């Protein structure tokens, strides 16, 4: 009669002293898998400039029209770069086709997953907000 009780208590006690598998979210963040598909963002070179050459292939391939408004300009060295670039996260389906289409590895799905917002406007990213910033959250080896 008492044996099952002790067994149960032993299980409970064992768990009291083992490491918990839950995370104290939001204080604790979960590390996502390397292939996690967060939202698309524009990557930068070591010197901090965008890699994007405004070829618009991501815009063409995007199945949900989340990428739009790419405006190109010519730089001093005759390079092509974007001066406007919009990513509409309300439309993005995180499929990663943009990343696959990009010939310059200039757009990449990051590992961010906290996309809920009170204000919808915050989900419309302009070129500056679409550009990679929080480098601590990126995997180092994805290129």
């Amino acid at each position: 009669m008492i044996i099952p009780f002790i067994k149960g208590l032993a299980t409970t006690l064992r768990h009291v002293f083992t490491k918990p598998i839950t995370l104290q979210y939001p204080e604790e963040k979960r590390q996502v898998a390397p292939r996690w598909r967060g939202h698309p963002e524009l990557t930068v070179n070591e010197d901090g400039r965008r890699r994007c050459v405004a070829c618009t292939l991501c815009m063409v391939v995007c199945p949900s029209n989340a990428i739009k408004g790419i405006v190109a300009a010519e730089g001093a060295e005759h390079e092509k770069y974007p001066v406007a670039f919009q990513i509409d996260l309300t439309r993005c389906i995180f499929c990663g086709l943009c990343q696959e289409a990009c010939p310059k590895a200039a757009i990449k799905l990051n590992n961010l997953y906290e996309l809920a917002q009170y204000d919808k406007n915050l989900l419309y990213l302009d070129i500056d907000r679409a550009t990679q910033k929080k480098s601590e959250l990126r995997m180092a080896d994805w290129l």
Partner: protein
Amino acid sequence: MVNLTIDGRAIQAPKGKTVLEVADANGIFIPRLCYHPALKPIGACRICVVEVKPGPPRPLPACATVVNEGMEVTTNSPRVQAIRDELMKLVLINHALECPICDKGGECELQDLTHALAVDKVDLEAVKLAPNHDYESLFVERHPDRCVTCGRCIHVCRDHVGAMAINFMQRGYFTELGSGVLPLDCEFCGSCIDICPVGALINKLWKYRARAWEVVKIESVCPFCGGGCVYELHTKDDRILRVRNEKSILLCSKGRFGFPVVEAPDRLKTPLIKDNGNFREASWDEALDLVAAKFQEIAASDAGAKAIYGIGSARATNEANYLFQKFFRQGLGTNQLDNPGRYTYVRALKGLAAVFGSPDVSGVEASTALPQPYQSPLTPGAEAKGSGFPFVLGKFNDLPKADLALVLGADVTPEMPPLGWKLLRALDNENFRLVLANPRHTKFDRYASLSLRYKPGTERILLSGIFKAFFTANADYIPSISAKGLEEFKESFKKVTLKDVASKTGVDEALIKETAALLAQAQAPAIICGTELLAQDKGEQNALALADLFLLIGKPGTPGSAVYPVAEKNNSRGVCEVGVLPDRLPGFVAVPEDAAGLTIADVLDKLEAGDPAAPQAVYMLGGDLLRGLPHRSLTEKLLKKVPFLVVQDAFLTDTAKLAQVVLPVAVHAEQEGSFISSDGTLGVLPAVLPANGVRPDWQIIGQLGEKMGYKLGASHPKQVFRELAQNMPLWAGLGPKASGPLMAGEVSGTFVPFEADLSLPGRRPHTLIIGKVLNHNGSYTTHAPDGTLKLVPRAELSLNPEDAKSLGLAAGDTAKVVSSQGEISVPVVLSPEMPPGVVFLPEHFAEPPVHLLTLNSNLVRVTIQKG
């Protein structure tokens, strides 16, 4: 027809076609890179090789192999596929992999071919060459590292444009497209850009502005000269990004790079009303109410409706000009209107009409076909025929069939580039002879059999010499056109001696005789004359002399044998055909003599004389009269005398500044309508861009008419065209891209003697010719700083280097040019193409106002001093 098989398929093909053309026509794809349907086969890339039996053991290029009876062609044997694969790898060695930023990406023929032939890797290596990019040239950017050395650009430049500005430099793997000089010095037509299969040549106006697949393509007609080239406007987000001619590729610099004029910073946006000498912005209703009230006040006064004078525009559409004349004829009930072509193109028509008569068309029926937009509701019946001068006016596509062209007083390429391209096609025919008569050395001198370098103003003396030599050598010559008055006409040259002509014109006697001999032999002679000739004080006499010459030697039944007067603006011919003339209704129907109105010249005379019949109000449909008419200071003084001047224009031109009311109008891409080109082709203009507050001409005229209580029926250009074409038997059967008149012509004429006198009196040492430069048309193109204004930003005095030396002038110096009428200061450019004693100024620019120098002609004697 010949019978052959391609890949086992039995095919019948016309003789003389190449294997590639036949395969294309039968839906068999042969890969190709250097072939372009607008060019002759080049045979540079060898991608299109096919196996041909019977034939040599090696494969042959399909683009340059003509089909034969019994030929068996294999397009995809393993052998030719291996050759193509190898050739593609050779092309792709070190091809710059810049597709993401290359403007050609998406419409690149090399991209397509690489996909089609599934070339996935290049296992060859070669030294990488330093790319000699040309970023400096205007409008054209060159990327030799993308070049596939197909040679298309060189062929189009040499054979079709005649500029010969680019060629290959080095040989073999090191072959590179070069121009000898940097930056590029050429006509900047940009045809090389659009013919390039890859992105080796890039249009700078288009560069990086959009990808090829993003644009909307709309077919339109070029508004920058009377050539009427049909092209495609490529737009994105309501802006024109580039212009292309997909079919023949050819466009001139104005056509290809002139479109920024639509976005010119000085475009008028709102109507302007002058209060106390200053313009203020007004609403459309206010401006139109003011004009309507003023016109009604004048019409009700003692002066009557006759005191309102209208000047149409060769820039405006047929529909606008038709409504304009309807406003005057039906609304005001007068014939008091004219168009500025009076000083050029109308003279050509008058000269031709004097000899060949006014048009008369019979046998025209109402069309039973469903009404299509811009299709005439009339159709020429089986018995339809016509007579009169429109039937001697040439069509561009026929010009290559001529066997002789006499070009008199026209620098063909600047006046009308498409006519120059057709002349080059005519020159493909080895029996074609080009006789060029011009005081200056022009581009076509290089191709001319005879160059007659006469002294400016002696055109009619030269022609009288040619007639004299002609009649001396061919006393019994019978014109092939039924002509009256030949004997009397011959008589009029009795006193002419060739020696005298030679001394007056400066043309050698032998040359005149040779010209006359060539003219007498010609089986299909064409005569081309330009505004340089027509804008003289006796331009009409010049046209008359040429009309007589055509009556003598012309063979109007033979294709190509025609007169080609250059209509300088997009609708110079249309504005006349729709009746914006004081003595002609639409379709050149004559107005009874006592009802005919005044010409612009008459009006200016009346204003000068202070005649009570001088107009109280002038309504101008555009066109900068001050910039275009001779004797600017007088014109300005007289226009200032007009109490009420209304100008409808896209820009605040010098003429518009004199106006009391200025109404801003939509320009070509913003309005719908049609143009009649110099060769009678109907070009249809779609509205591509939103008008942004300005209104199209037809709408303004319609609204003004409405406010004055006239029912002009201006609901839409399509409907206006229908009404207009209904009244024009001459346009029977005319539709988009068709060239009228479309009925059989019965040409007959009467010789009318002309005055063989000198057109240029005076004693000053230099003769100034005011004419056209290639990169501008009228003043229209001078408003766009991003357009062709970059190529020719200002007026420069072209001067013979010897003359300059004796005057102590060097290139870039400022010269003071003085005539009996006035003086201007202008920078000098040395030009060996000018004969000694002759100088040239372009007419297009606001500064300096060149017509301050002239009296009644585009020629004037001047003194040049160091300024």
